[in-house]
């Protein structure tokens, strides 16, 4: 039943420090053709280091094999489907990399004079304009480094506007299905957090919102579609309720992959949102980042955006630092520029209709998975899902098999696990997001693996509970690792 995986040679690899032997080196310098300089005399003893204690010394081939072997231990989107819900692990098209390696962009320096950085500035200006168009917002900052940083920036902007009005307010409302970063953002921005319980269908409870929103509420932070993958159909009404009381609507754009080209947050009442370029716009993700979390806002929030802002000065682009109401910088220089280039390449390569198709395909793939797995896994919320689908382990739990066990067994079938135990409002959640990247053959292969595991859970639960078997290491003891972590390698000990 396991089709995608065969055991193959996977070599053990010591730490580079343990491979070291004195005198080995991986480089060769040419003969000196200028008079030698005594570094000690030229720089002074305080600035010269004789050697680095414990620095590994290996040959070139040893260094190459070390990192190549480690790379074979990895699983990546280039190996297969990566259905990690809420993370939008889509394929990173090679055209993005091609464009990011164009010499003038790859070697641009942030201290380059404006006159010599017009191309890079044009890239940022175009990306800002396109993200504003896609989200239906008025202005965009590209500075934030990733999603949670974008959230914090967005909430600080809202705070700045409310303070300017002389009414900073005290609370931020967060639904119980929210990403954990939402309440964390609110707390760091100095707000008290109040939870709103979702309705039976897993949606924002608008009548509860109507009761709760008062003069103390600064904003509601909401993810749309929410973490169940369900579109908040009352979002426009929620915006009205908030706006009537002088509060604002912040949208966590983590799930924008379900909306691009179809619906615009600016049109359903959102005042500020962040985008995750490393999710929706196909830039490298996870350990391969860095990410980028641009924030898009409506006009009222625009004066508070981080400095510097791009502005047109005659025929050229210039940086505008003189903005009195700005919340200041949120990052050195201009954001993760290499990521911004890749996102622009993705948008231009797709064009408007292409982006829309990607969204439609992402939703279709998730709905296909839902329909085919519904007979085997419990679906706690029946509302129509968009780009991801959340099952629960209720049926398998009857045999003692939990969502974490199913995820481990999925590794044996050659897939990265889905998101486990999130959102918290679903007990034993299996959160699956295929993205538009996968074709029908890969989706079917994943679905067949999930069906096979559901059957194993009934006939041989121990098999699933002790998985994985085809991996380099068998199941690791996560509890001991967290309770008694060994955080540092100490040379020569144990």
């Amino acid at each position: 039943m396991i089709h995608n995986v065969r055991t193959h040679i996977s070599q053990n690899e010591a730490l580079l420090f343990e491979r070291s032997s004195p005198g080995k080196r991986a480089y060769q310098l040419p003969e000196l053709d200028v008079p030698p300089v005594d570094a000690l005399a030229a720089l002074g003893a305080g600035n010269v280091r004789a050697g680095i204690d414990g620095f590994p010394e290996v040959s070139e081939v040893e260094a190459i094999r070390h990192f190549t072997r480690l790379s074979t231990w990895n699983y990546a989107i280039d190996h297969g489907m990566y259905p990690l819900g809420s993370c939008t692990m889509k394929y990173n098209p090679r055209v993005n990399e091609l464009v990011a390696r164009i010499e003038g962009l790859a070697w641009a320096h942030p201290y380059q004079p404006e006159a010599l950085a017009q191309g890079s500035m044009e890239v940022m200006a175009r990306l800002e304009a396109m993200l504003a168009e896609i989200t239906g917002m008025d202005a965009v900052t590209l500075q934030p480094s990733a999603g949670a940083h974008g959230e914090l920036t967005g909430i600080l902007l809202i705070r700045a506007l409310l303070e300017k009005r002389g009414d900073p307010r005290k609370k931020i409302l967060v639904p119980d299905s929210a990403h954990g970063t939402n309440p964390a953002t609110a707390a760091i921005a100095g707000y008290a957090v109040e939870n709103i319980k979702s309705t039976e269908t897993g949606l924002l409870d608008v009548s509860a919102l109507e009761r709760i929103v008062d003069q103390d509420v600064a904003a509601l932070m909401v993810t749309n579609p929410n973490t169940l993958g369900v579109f908040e159909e009352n979002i426009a009404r929620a915006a009205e309720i908030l706006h009537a009381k002088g509060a604002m609507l912040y949208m966590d754009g983590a799930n924008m992959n379900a909306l691009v080209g179809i619906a615009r947050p600016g049109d359903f009442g959102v005042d500020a949102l962040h985008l995750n370029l490393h999710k929706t716009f196909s830039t490298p993700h996870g350990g391969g980042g860095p990410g980028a979390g641009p924030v898009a806002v409506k006009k009222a929030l625009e004066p508070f955006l981080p400095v510097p802002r791009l502005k047109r000065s005659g025929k050229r682009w210039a940086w505008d630092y003189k903005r009195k109401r700005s919340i200041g910088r949120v990052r050195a220089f201009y954001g993760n520029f290499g990521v911004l280039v890749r996102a622009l390449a993705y948008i231009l390569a797709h064009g408007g209709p292409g982006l829309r198709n990607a969204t439609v395909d992402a939703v279709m793939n998730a709905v296909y998975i839902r329909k085919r797995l519904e007979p085997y896994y419990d679906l706690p919320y029946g509302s129509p899902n968009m780009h991801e689908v959340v099952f629960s382990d209720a049926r398998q739990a009857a045999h003692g098999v939990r969502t974490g066990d199913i995820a481990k067994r999925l590794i044996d079938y050659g897939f990265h696990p889905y998101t486990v135990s999130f959102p918290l409002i679903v007990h034993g959640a299996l959160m699956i997001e295929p993205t538009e990247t996968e074709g029908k053959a890969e989706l079917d292969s994943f679905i067949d693996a999930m069906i096979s595991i559901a059957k194993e859970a009934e006939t041989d639960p121990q098999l699933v509970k002790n998985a994985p078997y085809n991996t380099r290491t068998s199941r690791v003891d996560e509890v001991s690792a967290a309770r008694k972590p060994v955080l540092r390698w100490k040379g020569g000990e144990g």
Partner: protein
Amino acid sequence: MYPENFRYTKEHEWVLVEGDTGTIGITDHAQEELGDIVYVDLPKIGARIEQGGSLGSVESVKAVSDIYSPAGGEVTDVNQALADAPEKLNTDPHGDGWLVKIRLSAPEEIAELMTAADYRKYVEAEK
């Protein structure tokens, strides 16, 4: 299972009142739901907490969850043993796994909490 002399919250904390001192912990149902607990974050002695305010958090392999105080008061003692042995929360949630002791500032708040019988029904209904 649930001691008769404890009172319980909807968020699955318990409190045992002795004089003006309340000993607070999380229920067996809570530890069951959380799974293996790996870290406990507790308040400082002397901290003042309102009823429903955050007493800290517990972290399991699955998630981090806030602990809400069943009653208001001042923290007089915290269970230091949990720093090295968070598993006590799983093995003995109603005994050795207690979290904090507080001096109750408004003992009448206790009357609002659930009895053992009410809590058993509440947990059954949640399942």
